[in-house]
């Protein structure tokens, strides 16, 4: 099985978010970058499928040189090969186009992504890539089993889930509990250093959006504490102050 896994390079989930240059640039100062948590699930499942069925896992990121440690980490987790499309991922259409063009170069049985990135939370790239390649796309996928040329998948729908059967190849946006996150071991880390990481240039520069300016939300007011023996006071505040009940 030949699997392409698309990963993002995003701030750790505990990061404080800030901007610089008059709120036009993300402030990377002190920020730790990680593989997007949903992408990490996709990668873990891809590695499991490879271990069970044989084949190859290729990880792909559209990003500048700074994302290479994140790609190396994916190699340490068990991917065999990495590709970096050398460009700032400024727009989801642009990113999807690069991914689709890379996918056309390889014969992938599966293209796995996260359900959404945790920076822009778009949840859009998998559908775009599916449409560009004329392949089915599914998201959010919580179970993925492959048998020969068909897959059984479980997709989350609001308030429940749906099981589907579909032929390979297709694109899936993954989320838990598709697999457990994998932590790289020493052997993985050592071997990652020598696995191939190929850098390619973007094929197309079309963008459909432009970022004007970032903003931070207004700070939250102070909490009002209520005595545990006086729950009536909470009810009163919810009813007459917040007016939410």
């Amino acid at each position, binding site marked *: 099985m030949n699997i392409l896994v698309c990963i993002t390079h995003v*701030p750790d989930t505990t990061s404080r978010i800030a901007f610089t240059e008059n709120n036009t640039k993300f402030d990377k100062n002190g920020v730790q970058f990680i593989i997007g948590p949903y992408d990490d699930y996709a990668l873990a499942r891809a590695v499991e499928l490879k271990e069970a069925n044989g084949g190859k896992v290729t990880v792909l990121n559209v990003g500048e040189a700074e994302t290479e440690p994140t790609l190396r980490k994916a190699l340490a987790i068990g991917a065999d090969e990495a590709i970096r499309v050398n460009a700032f991922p400024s727009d989801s259409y642009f990113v999807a186009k690069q991914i689709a063009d890379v996918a056309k170069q390889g014969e992938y049985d599966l293209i796995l992504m996260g359900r959404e990135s945790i920076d822009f939370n778009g949840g859009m790239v998998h559908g775009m890539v599916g449409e560009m390649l004329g392949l089915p796309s599914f998201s959010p996928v919580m179970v993925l089993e492959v048998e020969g040329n068909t897959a059984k998948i479980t997709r989350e729908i609001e308030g429940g889930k749906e099981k589907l059967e579909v032929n390979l190849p297709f694109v899936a*946006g993954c989320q838990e509990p598709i697999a457990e996150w994998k932590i790289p071991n020493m052997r993985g880390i050592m071997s990652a250093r020598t696995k191939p990481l190929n850098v390619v240039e973007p094929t197309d520069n079309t963008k459909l959006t432009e970022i004007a300016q*970032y903003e931070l939300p207004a700070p939250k007011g102070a909490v009002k504490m209520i005595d*545990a023996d006086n729950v009536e006071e909470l009810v009163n505040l919810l009813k007459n102050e917040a007016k939410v009940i």
Partner: protein
Amino acid sequence: MSVLVFIETEDGKIKKSSREAISYGAAIGEVTAIALGSVSNEELASAGVNGATKVLHAADEKLNAGLIQPYTEVIAKAFESTGAEVLVTAKSSLADAVVGRVSVKLGAALASNVSELPKTDSGFVVKQSIYTGKAFVNTTLTTDKKILAIKKNAIELKTDGAAASVEAFDVALDDALFGAKITSSEKAEGDVLLPEADIVVSGGRGLKGPENWGIIEDLAKTLGAATGCSKPVSDMDWRPHHEHVGQTGVKVSPSLYIAVGISGAIQHLAGVNSSKYIVVINKDEEAPFFKAADYGIVGDAFEVLPKLNEALKKALA
């Protein structure tokens, strides 16, 4: 401006988030809506209340399930045949899966998690919630055709419109679009859907075990609320996965979020930080969640919740 709104239905009813999308559309232009699968004419006409002039109905039974490629086809056709400039939809797991495809098909710029009406004095600029609610970005959509996926509870519902006219909308759908076979589907019935809910009561590891969820459910019932939980709770299978709230789960933006026995880890807060009001009940006064709360009670959930439930019942009677 001509606007097409994609309506999602649930048990034959237009979802509240879709009614918000219609209200959003009506605030920027003249709204035609598109609904797919079986739903009554009367229900569709009620989209007018929220500001739709006309509702197109692709009633083919094959569209009763939310199939991604057939939906893409129908919505793109409706967009073209109505000459719309903007497609508006609620942000939902189905819409997410569909609109990326529609965007490519139409060559339309796409903005997700839109949290306000657009500014149009210089270009078409929308404000999007990003970094899981920790920031916003103002984005210019540079194409003529545009798609906006609206964050839930981002806009006041319009409720003073007149009934909409309903028209059949038939699209010939190629069998190839139905390649994926649905083999089963499970849905919690009768419950309030978490992403749609106006009030959410959520429990964490502090509740000690699934057998104790009665106090959460009782409170939710009194308030007509949906129930949610923290990640460890769904990881341990105390609660179903679709109730897991946070950075890697459902992002909610209700009017009221009540967190019980949840410490308030940053990943949990990321999923709830756009709630209008937050109540935290935790026995540890140092729990970080209190910093993100509007109202807090330091106390044991097993004592506070039954009392709070009684007091609420009395107040709401």
